[in-house]
């Protein structure tokens, strides 16, 4: 069954943005959805923040406003674990998908779907940022504080972003999603420095913890279609969630993935295990009282976040990495998200020498990974 595309219940428009081209495009694409002008966005957001069930309600409405600060920020990663020098573009904030483990429930101050419409400022900031980092190969993407494609039928941002980044190698631009909202991608010419990536999990986790997200098989099928179109694709098994026999289920997903998508088209696969600040636990408990994921054995990590006990994480990583290698993915670049040097060494057999080493390993033009020399 095809997955339904998100349609907001109501669109709120910051009056400063009403004449912006993106606002007009959104209104054209959404036709009959009721709209309301917002003259004081601070009061509007404040009001929504203290509403009952604010997070769930916020996933139903769309707020078009402008990014007053910087669009581009370094990925905050987490203290005392290895980072990968990723840069994030804060274009859309929040997400209509409702994953129980989602850090945005804790991280985002404004509980409403936000689209920043001042794209002219984005392009200017990107020009300056790329100019400042001339010659440096780095990864940058829109999928950290929202899903890169879940609103794409409404905003069509993927077309503009791909068009902007085309030919700007060695910069690698990533669109990260859990959706199958790929129509605009399929209508766009691929470019070698664009990676469309999917967050994957086991079917059981997807069913129980990733509300409103398409099934894992649908995501893999979407990735296959995008790869067939000529794009490089990436995969993020993050967060890996432990439960009895989870290893076998993750292995099945990997076997299926590597059968469906040619490893040569895979730019990277990342692995990360469930982790969250202790204060998110209460939010998960209240919003998803049926979930069991917060009751697994988790310890307080070096960064103060709750995460699985080191031997448990390591075993899970090792199983998955072995499975990737045994199924034709031996040359696919693999990395761990927010993990310690110890885990890197024990799971992957190498430790990046500082941020630049990892940046270089992951940012080389896809397809040339064979020539990378990881230490």
């Amino acid at each position, binding site marked *: 069954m095809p997955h339904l595309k998100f349609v907001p219940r109501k669109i709120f428009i910051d009056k400063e943005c009403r004449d912006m081209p993106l606002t007009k495009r959104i209104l054209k694409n959404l036709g009959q959805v009721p709209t309301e002008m917002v003259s004081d966005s601070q009061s509007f957001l404040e009001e929504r923040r203290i509403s009952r069930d604010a997070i769930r309600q916020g996933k139903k409405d769309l707020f078009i406003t402008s990014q007053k600060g910087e669009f581009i920020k370094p990925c905050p990663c987490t203290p005392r674990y290895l980072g990968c020098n990723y840069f994030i573009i804060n274009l859309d904030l929040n997400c209509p998908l409702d994953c129980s483990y989602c850090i945005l429930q804790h991280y985002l101050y404004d509980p409403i779907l936000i689209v920043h419409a001042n794209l002219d400022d984005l392009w200017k900031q990107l020009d300056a940022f790329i100019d400042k980092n001339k010659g440096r190969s780095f990864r940058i993407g829109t999928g950290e504080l929202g899903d890169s494609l879940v609103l794409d039928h409404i905003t069509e941002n993927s077309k503009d972003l791909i068009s902007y980044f085309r030919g700007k190698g060695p910069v690698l631009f990533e669109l990260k999603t859990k959706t199958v909202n790929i129509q605009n991608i399929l209508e766009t010419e691929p470019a070698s420095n664009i990676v469309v990536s999917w967050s994957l999990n086991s079917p059981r986790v997807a069913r129980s913890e990733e509300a409103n997200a398409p099934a894992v098989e649908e995501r893999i099928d979407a990735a296959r279609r995008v790869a067939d179109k000529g794009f490089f694709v990436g995969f993020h098994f993050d967060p890996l969630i432990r439960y009895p026999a989870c290893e076998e289920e993750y292995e099945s997903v990997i076997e299926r993935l590597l059968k469906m998508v040619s490893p040569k088209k895979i730019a990277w696969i990342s692995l990360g295990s469930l982790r969250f600040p202790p204060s998110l636990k209460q939010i998960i408990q209240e919003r998803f009282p049926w979930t069991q994921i917060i009751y*697994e054995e988790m310890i307080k990590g070096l960064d103060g976040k709750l995460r699985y*006990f*080191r031997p448990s994480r390591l075993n899970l990583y090792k199983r998955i990495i072995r499975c990737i290698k045994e199924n034709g993915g031996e040359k696919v670049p693999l990395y761990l998200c927010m993990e310690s040097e110890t885990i890197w060494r024990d799971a992957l057999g190498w430790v990046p020498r500082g941020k630049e080493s990892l940046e270089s390993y992951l940012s080389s033009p896809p397809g040339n990974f064979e020539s990378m020399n990881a230490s």
Partner: protein
Amino acid sequence: MKKKKLVLKEIFLKDERYRTSYYFSLEKLKHSLKEVELLHPPLIALRNDRFVLVSGWKRVLACAELSFSYVPVLITEEMDDLKTFLMAFYENLATREFSLLEKAEILTRLKRFGEDEKRIIRHYMPLLDIPATLPYLDTYLAFSQFEPEVKKAIYEKNMSFLSVRPLVEFSSREREWLLPLLLPLGQNKRKQLLEDILGVSRKNDIPVQKILLSPEVRAIQESGTLTPLQKADSIRLLLRKKRYPAFSSMQDSFESLLRKIDWPDEIAINPSPFFEEENFTVTFDFENEKQLKSSLLKLEELSARKDFSKIFKLK
């Protein structure tokens, strides 16, 4: 506002609609009343032809215990419950700190008297030094629903928000069972016990009651030799092992290895917290060169022992 001398028995103390303080000691106040009588009149409102106490519960109860016949009072003509309550609230806000449970009762009264929820969050919670968020409001409202014995324990043990917060997750019955276990423990261990029992219960889908009635817990409870504190602590440790089996097992292996190599108490050796990293820390004290050399020699000797290298292979 009228000032009047009222027969104490005419104050209808059964009507506690404005009352927010329940647990306090009257001794100092009684002493003061004996010396200088009542200087600050309590506030009274007339409701259904009855004198209802708005503020000054400690003062009136102390007067009653001292068998005063009359008390000076101020009678407000305000008929709106919220406005009347706010007189007492602001009077107290200006003069004293509120306890955790008083804050809970204040927020409950504001809600009950029809104050807008958003105004409670934005206006009153910051005045009470509570973060202005809905989850905090809900938590405090839940505190006010606790059973009197639980509230009394919170007052007597001066429990903090963080150690009381986990109690919200339990049913009234469960709190009743848990209370005797909690009382002997300190704040951190109390919080840990509550979180662990909840975790074990939720993870394995076992009711709290069943955990508390399990043979292992009962054996500890029925021990004739353990003090209440030792019982509570033993149950806490038992639950810790159930909640963190892999970590506890590694911790046990580590400790057993130290015993095997006869590691001396005067040299502390600790793994990275939760074994998250592979490093260990050794600490010892010394007052002079001789003691330092002695400890270093001891360490060298310990590290040469056959089983020492197993410390680096703990799984």
